[in-house]
């Protein structure tokens, strides 16, 4: 298996902030909006250099989504930012009517997604956002894996025409991807080629999948690991090509088992090639307070659980 190492850990939200900093310098149409969480979204460098292109909305997310939709009517590219829970569930109707149905070029950028927000608990740990956003016609859904990829995805979004949801997290995690990568929306990234089982992972779970791949390799199992950073549009070709080789699948996501990446992959398989699939996801429950590592373990999302899922999938071939 290809070796992935890291020299530092960083949070993906800082990757977003770094991407916004670049966009502030590169693209005069980019406007940032926030609902009283500037520090959490790492927007300070953007605001310092482009104060006129930052709009503080206060704690009023519904209005922020509407203002964002209106800004596009003047040719602006708004990046509306807050925690994932408030960026999606709280304002689903506003996103549905004023952004998605209206086909507006709004980028909804959401930090603190998933369980790994940690100690704040279930009120802030949204596990349904991928499902809600992917169900909206025309919405692009992106969940990058580390600091560098989040930065690259942020920059790529400004060039992409249409509504998009960018999801990232709070904890510091290993930075293992190329700092100068080009991010291709809708094109999955093969992290490791293998023959025994396909592991399709998204977001923070990609690093867990890499750890799982190393454990499996030590036991003589050769896993193919693919980073599905874009959940919609889904790279069906990459998924089917991998499954042709391996004949079984594990999907891994920091999201509810219902309605997330796993279900998207299952839909591709059921239409094209039936193979065993195992889900590594939260089993239709809310989260709770705890450290990110504790929560990943308790809710069955860490590398150990991916290893077990891979063995179950292989056994069902």
């Amino acid at each position: 298996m290809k070796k992935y190492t890291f020299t530092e850990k960083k949070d993906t939200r800082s990757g977003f902030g770094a991407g916004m900093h670049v966009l502030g310098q590169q693209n005069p149409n980019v406007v940032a909006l926030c609902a009283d969480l500037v520090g959490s979204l790492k927007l300070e460098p953007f605001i310092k250099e482009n104060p006129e292109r930052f709009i503080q909305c206060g704690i009023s997310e519904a209005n922020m989504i509407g203002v964002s939709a209106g800004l596009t009517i003047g040719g602006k590219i708004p990046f509306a930012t807050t925690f994932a829970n408030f960026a999606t569930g709280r304002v689903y109707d506003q996103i549905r009517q004023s952004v998605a149905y209206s086909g507006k070029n709004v980028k909804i950028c959401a930090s603190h997604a998933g369980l790994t927000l940690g100690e704040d608990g279930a009120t802030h740990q949204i596990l349904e956002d991928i499902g809600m956003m992917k169900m909206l016609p025309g919405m692009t859904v992106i969940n990058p894996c580390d600091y560098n990829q989040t930065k690259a995805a942020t920059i790529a979004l400004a060039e992409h025409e249409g509504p998009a949801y960018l999801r990232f997290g709070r904890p510091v995690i290993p930075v293992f991807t190329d700092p100068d990568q080009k991010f291709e929306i809708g094109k999955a990234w093969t992290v490791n080629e293998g023959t025994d089982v396909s592991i399709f992972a998204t977001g923070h779970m990609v690093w867990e999948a890499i750890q799982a791949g190393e454990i499996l390799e030590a036991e003589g199992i050769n896993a193919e690991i693919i980073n599905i950073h874009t959940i919609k549009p889904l790279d069906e070709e990459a998924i089917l090509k991998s499954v042709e080789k391996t004949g079984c699948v594990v999907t891994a996501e920091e999201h509810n088992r219902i309605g997330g990446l796993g279900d998207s992959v299952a839909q591709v398989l059921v239409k094209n090639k039936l193979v065993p699939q195992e889900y590594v996801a939260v089993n239709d429950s809310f989260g709770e307070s705890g450290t990110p590592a504790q929560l990943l373990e308790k809710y069955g999302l860490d590398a150990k659980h991916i290893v077990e899922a891979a063995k179950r999938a292989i056994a069902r071939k």
Partner: protein
Amino acid sequence: MEIEQLEKVASQVRRDIVRMVHGCQSGHPGGSLGCTELLVALYFERMKLKENDGKVVFDMDGKDEDLFFLSNGHISPVWYSVLARKGYFPVSELATFRKLDSRLQGHPTTHEHLEGIRIASGSLGQGLSVALGAATAKKLNNDKGTVYVLMGDGEQQEGQVWEAATFAPHHQVDNLVAFIDLNGQQIDGPTVKVMNNRDLGAKYEAFGWEVINIEEGNDMAAVVKGLYEAKGRLGHGRPIMVLLHTGMGYGVDFMMGSHKWHGVAPNDEQLAAALAQLDETLGDY
């Protein structure tokens, strides 16, 4: 345009409204009839629109022109009629309102690429926020155009409206004129009974808006005068709120003043009775 000419357009628009709603046996005539003077005055007198060889042209960004947003999207018949009569799309298309494969959806949408529509509306409470975004974009673009937005009075019960009401004075969005159609009716009955909004003017003033009343919202001369007054107050750091006092169903005697015609279509006899009260001035579609 002379007041008399504007009134002629308004009469034809009212005929369009009742015929459209009758044609598909669905839609919202009451609020549409009540806001006819406002939309006619805006599009035929007040707004600076993009034109080429004397004809209006539409582009989504609307740079260097005035923009209008309809937040209470259910009164789409009046907007569609005014847009068609202004020349944005063929008047004959009004006959497709709310029918399968039509660009004139029950509630306005960008989805069908109907000229003049820049955002979907129908789920209430979102239009003021969108208008604030468009007005902010104009400021960022050094575009001198004005943004207009119409809301219903029942719609004031939505929480998002008050998020937007807070935002506008804070960010000094003073290139925006908002209207509330104060017809006092909503689906379930008089607004004071369903959920009393109480003194909306005092509320907006307390939020930092400049508030103007147009007491005779169905008097064309009063509406035009009010629009000039609103325009004159722009550019001084405060958004403008116009309380437009209208009668629901205005112009058709049996529809006037009652919430019962909020979302009900006239039958054949009722249509004939309505049309008998409204002069055909520009030709029916």
